[in-house]
């Protein structure tokens, strides 16, 4: 029996990077095949080729032994290949039914959309595969887990035999991940085949039948979970022996740096997304806020940095109230902020590197005397910083857009760390970065903590939170549900809280800490 899918010698280059280098991959019928690699290894590019979004420079694709040319998503769909993207391809202002039928609309009376028939079919699929969803709901009203179910239904509606899932667990709580795995296993039982892209070692070991590791655009090897271990896989992904533990001393917190009490914040659509959050961050400690994205963390950070007005509550920085301060005043009081979206919020990409490095301090002496900028001072400061923070750039004069993701993040870190800061707020500081940069940023954060800065870390990556934090707070639906010491914390407990189970309830079934104090690095 020929394999369901085979890729031979697939190659794709973009200016400056060889994303896929003669990749061979086979997918057997009825298997879950994991595609593992760190950020930038070429996994998504490969799947985009398979799905018809990119054209390969070289290479062939075979479906059940037959050579095919896939020029567009329609071709891929026609061949029974469906893709659930990492960033959902759903239209928020339309309903589930409209999103599912888009592109292959059913028509009645020759002209009009037939929503009823499609809704009926959606309910059928929903029941058949255990994917609970309301066809008439608007996407913008659905929680993230439900939106993912809609994406899967979209693919099944088009009668896909092969499902490609790109980093599907990034937005799920540990319990939801279990639920997803159950659905995937049941799909396999019904005869589908699945390719599963991820960078998370644990999931791969739990779910996959076979694992292909990509590194730098090349296939490093294909193994089964039985043959491999997490350490072996990590080494394959990164190309060297990896130390899976963050080296850090115990924290010595002294005094409260940031005190947040009963904070209420509305988002841009006027929904109350932070509902009475209360927590403290001490000088010299890292407080990590864990939680699935969309539970108010983003708006919490905006309120703390002055970008969104809080409705009520108090925020004090070293005793002084700060809730009504403008973003500039907050920065001046010694708050540094690494934003979640570095290109949107962190940098002006078309400004040269030196201007980006003074984006927060351009108006202060010695960078300016009155309103006149002191260019020479700015340039020399910038040169020093680039050296100090190991930013790989041809010069400080080039546009920030020419830097790689990791180096762009280093510019932001350099900028923030070069000011006297009392509180560092880091939102998803290592999103989309390669291992080397992740290592670097983590070390810098721990360094700052040891120097006496208070650090508030917000990240949906539970592993990162556990690795770096001294205490962990879980945020669910705009409230801080519980705060636990990080040493020896039990992931299951955190997972339950992240899913909305109340602390008291969760404690009935799971202990807060585990016996082994194993701390794992993020991959």
């Amino acid at each position, binding site marked *: 029996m020929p394999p369901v899918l085979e890729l031979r010698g697939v190659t794709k280059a973009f200016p400056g990077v*060889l994303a896929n280098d003669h990749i061979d991959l086979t997918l057997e019928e009825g298997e879950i095949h994991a595609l593992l690699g760190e950020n930038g290894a070429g996994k998504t590019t490969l799947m985009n080729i398979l799905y018809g979004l990119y054209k390969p420079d070289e290479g062939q694709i075979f479906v059940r032994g037959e050579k095919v040319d896939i020029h567009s998503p329609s071709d891929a769909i026609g061949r029974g290949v469906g893709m659930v993207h990492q960033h959902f391809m759903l239209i928020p202002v339309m309903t589930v039914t409209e999103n599912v039928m888009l592109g292959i609309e059913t028509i009645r009376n020759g002209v009009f959309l037939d929503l009823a028939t499609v809704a009926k079919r959606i309910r059928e699929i929903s029941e058949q595969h255990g994917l609970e969803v309301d066809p008439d709901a608007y996407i913008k009203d659905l929680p993230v887990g439900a939106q993912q179910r809609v994406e899967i239904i979209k693919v099944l509606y088009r009668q896909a035999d092969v499902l490609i899932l790109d980093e599907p667990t990034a937005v799920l709580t540990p319990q939801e991940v279990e639920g997803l795995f159950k659905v995937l296993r049941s799909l396999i039982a019904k005869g589908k085949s699945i390719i599963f892209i991820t960078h998370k070692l644990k999931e791969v070991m739990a779910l996959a039948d076979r694992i292909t590791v990509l590194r730098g655009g090349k296939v490093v090897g294909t193994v089964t979970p039985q043959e491999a271990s997490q350490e072996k896989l990590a080494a394959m992904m990164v190309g060297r022996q990896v130390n899976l533990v963050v080296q850090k001393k115990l924290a010595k917190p002294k005094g409260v740096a940031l005190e947040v009490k009963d904070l209420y914040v509305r988002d841009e659509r006027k929904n109350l997304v932070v509902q009475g959050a209360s927590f403290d961050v001490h000088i010299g400690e890292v407080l990590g806020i864990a939680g699935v994205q969309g539970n108010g963390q983003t708006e919490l950070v905006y309120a703390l940095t002055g970008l969104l007005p809080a409705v009520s509550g108090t925020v004090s920085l070293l005793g002084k109230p700060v809730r009504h301060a403008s973003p500039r005043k907050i920065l001046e009081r010694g708050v540094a902020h690494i934003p979640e979206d570095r290109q949107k919020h962190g940098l002006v990409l078309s400004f040269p590197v030196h201007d980006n490095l003074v984006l927060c301090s351009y108006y202060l002496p010695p960078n300016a005397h009155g309103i006149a900028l002191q260019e020479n001072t700015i340039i020399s400061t910038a040169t020093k910083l680039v050296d100090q923070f190991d930013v790989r750039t041809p010069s400080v*004069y080039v546009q920030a857009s020419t830097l790689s993701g990791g180096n762009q993040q280093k510019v932001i870190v350099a900028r923030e760390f070069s000011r006297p800061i009392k509180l560092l707020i880091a939102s998803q500081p290592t999103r989309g970065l390669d291992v080397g940069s992740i290592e670097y940023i983590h070390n810098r954060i721990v360094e700052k903590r040891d120097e006496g800065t208070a650090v508030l870390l917000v990240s949906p990556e539970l592993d990162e939170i556990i690795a770096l934090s001294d205490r962990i707070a879980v945020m669910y639906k705009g409230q801080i549900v519980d705060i636990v010491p990080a040493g020896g914390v039990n992931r299951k407990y955190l997972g339950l809280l992240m899913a909305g189970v109340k602390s008291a309830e969760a404690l009935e079934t799971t202990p807060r800490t585990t016996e082994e104090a194993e701390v794992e690095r993020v991959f």
Partner: protein
Amino acid sequence: MKSKDVKKKAATKPADKEEPTSKGKRGFWSQAGQTLLIPALSVVTGLVFGAIIIIITDAHVLAAYKNFFSAPGLALLAPFEAVFNAYGALFTGSFGSPVALVKAIQTYAATGDNASLLKAIYPFTESLVSATPYIFSGLAVALGFRCGLFNIGAEGQFFIGALCSAYVGYAFKMPWYFHLPLALLAGALGGAIWGAIPGYLKAVTGAHEVVNTIMMNWIAFRLSDWLLTGPMMAAGFRPVTPVIQDTAFLPRIFSDPLRFNAGFFLALAVAALVYWFLFKTTLGFEIRAVGMNPDAARYAGMSIVRNFVLVMTLSGALAGLAGASQVLGVDHWVGQGFSAGYGFDSIALALLGKSHPVGVVLAALLFGFLRGGATRMQSMAGIPIDIISVIQGFVIIFVAAPAIIRAIYRLRVARVEETVLTRGWGK
């Protein structure tokens, strides 16, 4: 693609792109050359397209082609004749006739009589006179672009500025060292208010400045209609203001009928000031940051609202100065249709000059020469002055879509990050 081609493509480093203002790297002149190339070619191509339109609408050419088979030579020559007449008139209108100039110099050398010399340089100075308000209004629009704001209201701001400075000019009697600055200030202030209103609306409600500034234009036209036929009307029948006092004049450099005045130098000084403001001050830094990435600017503590209002106000002030310079330096009174064309022209200017003060001055000079010549083109060759708008439309498109010029002339220029000009509606 072959394997080695693929490897080659991957080998091009993305760091090959660099900002044109990088100091000392990659050679200043080759940088300047590259930045100038596309706008220069755009102008040339625009003129070519304009020529085509002139040809196909020329009565003589059409007549000649009717008789193509009887007199083919004439028919083939006719287009060239038409263009030659038209652009020839354009040239002498802009620069003056070189022949006349030489003769005039000879006369002056011989007899010391400068009358014919003055006459010979008249077209050239007239072009500079035409360029002066363009410099101001081009700077106005360019400043807006730098902050991501599209100020189409330059025409209305021009008119209001002209009226305000005219009012101060004719209604008060003071010594010139008070009167002239006050009149200029009044013009700037009038324009500033006219710009601040849409700026404020944009900052606070998010209403797009494109529609609002256009509406302010039409309101300005109606307002000026009323003022010129009512409260500000001079004695008599024509809808014009009284002539301003001579203590409010911008001094003329030469004697009549040359209208070249100090306004030109004022414009250059203001351009230098705008350059310093944009690139060497903290305020300018903020404005450019907000224009490039308002989200990051907010994160870094900058106030978007304040910058929007500031920029629209300054932009309006510059456009108001354009009007003021025209009144105080050239016409000395204001009539209907005073601001005609300046609004859209300044957009073309700012685009052509890449929103940089130096570029704007160069583009303004170009437009000044075109306008100067266009009047003559209309009187001598009978080409309606509107052809200039047509050419401008083409030029804007070519500058905004450099890919077209590159395609026509088969250029391969390294791509540089273009200024993001605008976003959609609302915030």
